[in-house]
Each structure stands twice: as C-alpha cells, then as structure tokens.
C-alpha cells in the first residue's frame, strides 16, 4: 500500500501496522541493525499520528494502516 509518511510517499506491504511504519522510518538510521536489535527502547520520545489522530503507543502493534493513509512520526528536537 502507498502511504504518506512525514510528507514523503512510502510503500509498505499490505497488512502493515503502525509499528511497521515506525520501524521503517527509524531503520533509515545510521545503524539500522542496532535499531532493529533494540526495538522499542529506541522509540522512546516518538509519537505517531495517523490522518491527524494521535495513536497511543499501546496501539502501535495492532492498528492496521490503509492505502492512502497520512502518517506523522515525530520526536524531540531542540526548541523552546
């Protein structure tokens, strides 16, 4: 399915859940293997909205995505 993730088009397998898209975004990190190995610990400070609705962390593993969904994956940056 085709999704818009942080403003960019991205294709994920049908049946993907919110957790899959978070992992897909984070696996672009400089050390993607380390990210996969540590899993949830690396998502500290990450929040997700799907089509403008906040998705609680507890729902990430189960909430299915649909073709055309718009997803924002956010984290802390210096500010304020």
């Amino acid at each position, binding site marked *: 399915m085709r999704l818009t993730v942080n403003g960019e088009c991205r294709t994920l397998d049908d049946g993907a859940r919110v957790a899959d898209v978070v992992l897909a975004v*984070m*696996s672009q990190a400089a050390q993607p293997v380390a990210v996969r190995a540590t899993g949830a610990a690396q998502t500290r400070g*990450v*929040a997700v909205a799907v089509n403008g609705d906040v998705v609680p962390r507890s729902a990430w593993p189960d909430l299915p995505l649909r073709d055309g969904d718009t997803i924002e994956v956010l*984290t*802390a940056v210096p*500010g304020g």
Partner: protein
Amino acid sequence: MGNAGGPPVDEFALGGQVLGSRLVLGTGGATSHASLAAAIRASGTALVTVALRRLDPTAPSLLDAIDGVRILPNTAGCHTAVEAVKLAHLAREAFGTTWVKLEVIGDEDTLLPDAVELLTAAATLVDDGFTVLPYTTDDPVLSRRLADVGCAAVMPLGSPIGSGMGIRNPHNIELIRDAVTVPVIVDAGIGTASDAALAMELGCDAVLVASAVTRAEHPVTMAAAMRHAVTAGRLAYLAGRIPRRAYATASSPVHGLPTW
C-alpha cells in the same frame, strides 16, 4: 545557599512537583548535543524544553543529551488552539509527561501569542488532564484568565522570543505577580544575567532562558551566569530591597562630626 531557615532558595513547586532550580532551560538554538548537555549541567536546571518535529533518523537522539532532567515539551509553531492541543497530545505520547509549555503564536514577525487561541487551548488541555504552562503576553488580565482556567503557572514574556531585549515592562510583570497565585515564570526576551536577576527581583518564581544561553558566544559560561543570576535575584527579592529615593541618604553618621 541559605535562606534563614526556610526552604532552599533555589527550590520551587510547579505542577505539584518540587524542582531544585528556578532556572528553566530552553534547548532551542543549541549548536550541538554535547554543548547543550554541558550547558544543562552548568545551569543546574531541573527542567528543559523540547519541541516535537518529524523524526530524522540520521539525527542523534536529543533525549540522550538531556538525560536526568525533566522534559517540558512545547507547542512551538502552532497558530491555532486545535493545532496546539493536538501537538500537546502527541508530546504526551512521546515523552510520557502531562506537562506542556503551551505556545500559540499569533504573529510571525514578533512571535507574540494569540491570546484568544491561547486561552481556548489552555482550557481544553487542562480539561484533558495536562499541566499547562502557557507562554503569554505580559498582560495581567490574560494571566489571571489563564490561571482561572487551571493553568499550573503563567509564563509572561519580558520581550519577544530571542530578542534579548530583557524585561521591557517590569511594572506589568509585578502586576502579574500580584494578579495570580500560581507560579510566574518569565519566559522570553532574557538577554543576559542581569535580565534574569531582575525577573527574580520582581518576585517571579522562575525564569526560562533559551537563546541567551544557546546562542551566547560561550553557552556553558552563560549558563553558569544565569544560574547565579537567578539565585542572586531570588535572594535579593527575599532580602527586601531598600526603597528608591530621589536624593541621597547619608550612610555615615552626621552626629560626632568634628568642627574646625
């Protein structure tokens, strides 16, 4: 530092928690996570602000740099109550905190708050269970309205964000101090240590400093200066300054002066 048997001078209660420093550090403008971490240590702060933006997987984790201090997410960049409320809820998910520095900006050039949207967002977030710390204009009436809807503090500006112009209307800050019972934290415009000291001398409970530290030529040194300034200003407030007079008052006795 001593306070004549009272609580430690640097401690203050905010949102039901006791913080060990009256200096809140904004992280905006930091050039590196390493210098930010050093500035945090030098400032002695117990509370630092962060913004929430799209995740850049190639960037190092900011949270690693600010370990050990409480996180205060902000809603910077929001222009409506709806946007700010949504971002606050995302921040609660990201950081597991109900605390939020509420910013709703009404003008791009001055970054002054939009009072109407701010009050609406504050009331909504209080109802949603947040500890709301609103960035506001130095308006005593708006500050009272924000306190009335349940904000845990009010954070009036001294002057526009990042301007370094200090406290342009000290009288209004004093009026705000008198208008609310919640903590008053001067939030914007601090340029150097004397500005932070003045905020505390006016009776504010804390000072939030960002650019003045992160964009200083030597951020770690300025962070230490701010730490001392906030403590000095608080002590001066507690000490009770002498009244201002138009003419001199001799400090040496007149009695006993020899005649020639």
